[in-house]
């Protein structure tokens, strides 16, 4: 899903950058508060970043005959809240843009919106919806993080479609073309990401109960503050 350096027209690049900034601010505020109130969760925050680091470095083969990578952003979104992943995603994307020439600085905003905002928020939303509907545990985690991973690539296809409308089919036609490249390839990889996230969650439920309870209390409290 990395749009290469210079491959989005300046206006589009700036607009997606501007769209990502509020989430970065919200995310860093939330991280600051979580670490202040529950400093013992900082290792788990590091582990969430590490998960995204590994997964976005692995270019896996897909049944479409091309390769792509998962994003690993769903785990942190479910644990710490989606806005936190804007910050962690920015770290991953900066590493790749500066050291690997994968993605880029000019396209950082767009890539961040896809990977650090859209994916995590979809994962978080699907998880909330499914638990509210009574689905429990692994199924909700799997569906949420797999769909979040897929959403990232759908957003990338939309970004490219808007920037490069097809001379005949317009933006819609173009979006479909880019979807055929990204979304189909990503379906099996999204499943893989969902399964891997469930595995990590299984471990955390057994060994990191205290941190999970802290984070649950934290998000309940901050939700109350918002509605109050």
């Amino acid at each position, binding site marked *: 899903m*990395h749009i290469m350096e210079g491959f989005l027209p300046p206006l589009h690049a700036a607009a997606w950058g501007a769209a990502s900034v509020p989430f970065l601010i919200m995310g860093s505020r939330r991280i600051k508060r979580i670490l202040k109130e529950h400093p013992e969760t900082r290792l788990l925050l590091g582990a969430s970043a590490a998960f995204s680091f*590994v997964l976005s470095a692995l270019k896996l083969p897909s049944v479409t005959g*091309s390769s792509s990578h998962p994003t690993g952003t769903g785990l942190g979104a479910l644990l710490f809240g989606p806005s936190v992943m804007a910050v962690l995603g920015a770290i991953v994307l900066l590493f790749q843009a500066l050291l690997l020439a994968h993605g880029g*600085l000019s396209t950082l905003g767009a890539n961040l919106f896809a990977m650090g905002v859209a994916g995590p928020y979809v994962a978080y939303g699907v998880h909330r919806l499914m638990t509210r509907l009574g689905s429990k545990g692994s199924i909700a985690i799997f569906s949420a993080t797999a769909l979040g991973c897929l959403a990232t690539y759908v957003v990338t296809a939309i970004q490219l479609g808007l920037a490069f409308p097809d001379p005949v089919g317009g933006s819609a036609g173009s979006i479909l073309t880019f979807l055929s*490249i*990204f979304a189909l390839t990503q379906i099996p990889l999204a499943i893989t990401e969902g399964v891997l996230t469930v595995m990590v969650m*299984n471990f955390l439920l*057994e*060994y990191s109960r205290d941190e999970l309870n802290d984070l649950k209390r934290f998000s309940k409290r901050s939700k109350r503050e918002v509605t109050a």
Partner: protein
Amino acid sequence: MKRTNVMLLFVVVMMTLLPLVLPSLKGSEFAGADGQAQAMITTIDSNYQPWFEPLWEPPGGETETLLFALQAALGAGFLGYYIGLKRGAAQQDKGRKHHETD
């Protein structure tokens, strides 16, 4: 937890290996989707020129592989550290409880 995770790991391995052995994909190079999208951009708009260049690029494929491996190693290293730490702490707790009941 352990048995479920071993089974899930098996699913992940199978999902990853399947495309490599599918007869219909024989001869495929599994090129990156990012690269395909980039090629599609130039097909749609052949006049498009990237207006910004990477500040630094790995000199070749080998160095790029090195840096990708480094990224994965950093992540996996930290995850392994976290898992080991948590398991060690749990074991110590268990040992202490055991000791107290003795």
